């Protein structure tokens, strides 16, 4: 089997899996990184949302062969280290707004929120209701309203 080398959460990993296995399963089943969750496997629910070189991606839809040796994958577990803190401001906002219910969707929600705030900031503007409406992450516990409040608060501290 081919070996693949890339970086996950600041550390270099080498895995021995067929090329077409999707990154989600490499993370979860091979590397034991379980923060990204499975909710659909077809890039719809966004529960698996993680970052690739700082942008939001859905590893359930990325064959591991697409990941280059220089690529940096960040999952929820590695998010705090990107700001050199115990918690990323978005995670803190999530705690302050007590967003979590069952919690299953929340790693993906937070990763999507961080990428959204970065994207909007790069455009030199603030978050709008339309931006928030554009988030596709499912939450079957229906925490959407607190998510909106938390993103605005988290953005203020990013």
């Amino acid at each position, binding site marked *: 089997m081919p070996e693949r080398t890339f970086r996950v959460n600041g550390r270099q990993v080498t895995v021995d899996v067929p090329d077409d*296995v999707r990154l989600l399963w490499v993370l979860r*089943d091979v590397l034991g990184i379980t923060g990204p969750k499975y909710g659909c496997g077809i890039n719809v629910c966004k529960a698996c949302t993680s970052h690739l070189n700082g942008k939001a*991606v859905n590893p359930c839809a990325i064959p591991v062969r697409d990941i280059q040796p220089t690529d940096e994958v960040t999952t929820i577990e590695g998010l705090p280290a990107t700001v050199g803190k115990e918690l990323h401001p978005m995670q803190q906002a*999530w705690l302050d707004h007590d967003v979590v219910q069952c*919690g*299953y969707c929340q790693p993906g929600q937070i990763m999507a929120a961080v990428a959204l705030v970065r994207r909007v900031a790069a455009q030199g503007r603030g978050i709008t209701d339309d931006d928030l409406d*554009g988030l596709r992450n499912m939450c*079957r516990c229906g925490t959407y309203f*607190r998510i909106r409040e938390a993103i605005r608060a988290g953005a203020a501290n990013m």
Partner: protein
Amino acid sequence: MREPIGRRRFLGYVLAAPTLVTAAEIGLRPSVAAASSADAQLPSPNITNIVDLNDLMTLAATPTSGLIAVEVGQDGMVSFALPRAEVGQGITTSTAMLIAEELSVPLERVRITLADARPELVFNQLTGGSNTTFATYTPIRVAAAIARRRLLDAAAIALGSAVTDLSLRAGTIVSRSGRSIDIGALADKAASTQTQQVSVELAPRESFTVIGKPHSRIDALDAVTGRKKFAMDLDVPDAKPTMVCRPPTINGKVGSVANLTEVRAMAGVTHVVVISTGVAVRAETFGQCIDAVRALRVTWKPGTAAGKSDETVRQELERAELPLGLPPLTPTVEGKFTFYFRGNSALETNCAVADVRADRAEIWSGLKSPIVAQQTIAAKLGLPASRVAVHVVQGGGSFGRKLFFDAALEAAEVSQKIGKPVKLMWHRADDARQGRAHPMVTSRVRVSYLGGTVLGYEQRHTSVATDLGHGIGEIITGLAAQLPVGDIGFSEIFFKLSQTTPYDFGATSLLLSETDKGFNTGSMRNVYSPDATCARELIVDQVAARMRRDPYQFRRDFLHDDRSRAVLDKVAEVGQWGRQMPAGTAQGIAFHAEYKSVSAVLVEIDCRPATVNRPIREGVTGPRVTRAVFAVDVGLAVNPRGLEAQMMGGVSDGIALALTSSLHLRDGYFLEASWDNYFYTRQWNTPLELQIIVMPSTSERPGGAGELGVAPSMAAVACAYGRATGTMPTSFPINHGTLSFEPKPTVPPVPPSPTDGLNYAS
């Protein structure tokens, strides 16, 4: 010496153990008779005023001897294994708060775990009917209060002071002279070598410092850091990913498999085996399971809903509907409403880990009825129940789904057949198509009136059979003989127990009839209330219109009691009921009472074309609820912040049920196979303004809350939609008639994993 057991005195135990362990019986609560005598004074008495579902579920516990125990460790931590399932509703947090209150320890020093299946608890380990806080409120506090008492006694000896000179604060006992000792240092001194019964007094409500104050969830940090472990995150040795290739129609069975050998040879695949529900595949990764499931060539036998569709089920319901009474001579308002099938999938699909050996088995899963699961799995495996350990894992949502244990049963079967541990997970498409659904329902309502008086209210609720075979059914059947309901089946009793008519509408008759057991059904954040309430509230609006009354004022005048009127008044006031709204937008208001709790919702909806037709890729936009105001009185709110969260979830569910989410049945299967087919509320459907008002406590005891918010929200959205469009909606969700997606194939049963993820990096 026997002390009299007064109003706040309760009996509990100190258990023989090397560290301090105190306990109480989980059935502990004030007698049902006392509760019912107060309720019986209400006008228009019906069965739910005498005893509601919560009473029944709690009452069911009384004959059991199961104790629940609080343990104080030498590290100063207080531990409690909750015999319920945490699936997002916040009960670990509220339970920790009860212990923190009675024991005067900080919340951080209370460690709540979920108890394994404990058969001796019989009906007391069932998480359903919004019953948890109601049933555990007193016994948990009693156990904690006994621990406090023992710790103070031990401290008195250790510090050489009288107990009356000691105070316990933040986990430390301080004497008047200033000496102090941590409870951890007293844990063994306060322990008992023999089990003894003691009585204890509970803290009065006026002195509460934790209960009733908002607290954030105790598991939030784990959840936001990705550390919270769900069943599929557990590291059980050699439990490899496993999925099942499922039939193209509901409950179809395997005929034959053409290419077993070929699929067994696929990359990563370790086992392929035929089981009772399909063909199971075990592999190194779930990705390889998906590939193998898609590669299998299976011929299938027809299922239990062969050839059925929404239309044929509608006809079945029509035939099963019970007749209304003779038509009254007075004017009437009548309506009939259809509620299509809905999926109760959580975001975490059905899943379980199983390790079955020749003489024993171990199961890990999010389970709300672990005792029934244990017994059923043991029977299937041919093992004594005592040899099957069932561990309850925190669940990624439930909404009724986790009352069943479909995945645990399958995982056990696969593990036994192949002789290896398995980590079995359903694909999303499986969860939508073969998973449990809320049954399709019709509800006919007729109200007779004369002048300004309502003379009678009749409702005939007709439903595809709801499977209650997870414990609740047994509770109801077991206790039915004690109830004044005559000789009827348990679904009908359940209906009577859970449905109340909150209005003073004269002669009232609510009846349920069921038909067709061919579907995999279950509750979905309540069984009957959302549909029954939605139908009732829409008709209430119609009656008010006939009488030329304002919908809010009309409801207010007919509500039974002040507590109900208070929540209705609150939403009308905060939501500015009656304010001017542009054409195509409107307010709606609704009321719902259940589980000794009352709630009211006011929503504003925008049905203007510019809003309805706003584009969202692969999504249903439709009318938007722009604002929701929710008032809730659960008697005593243990954790108001958690209660608000539950109501917020109820609003999201209510919007989905009224406007967007349903399953379409065609040719014996559901068309939906993805969250972009099944339109649960998404960000673009979320109200831009949401206010939840927790009313001041009106009772000494908490009522139920987990399901409460759904029914009034759904009803308010439906009423608002009717007022905005000028036409009362009669079929739900309102967009069911339009198929808003391209159905995925049924063979293979799961869609391929996309490969273009990088294109969407954003």
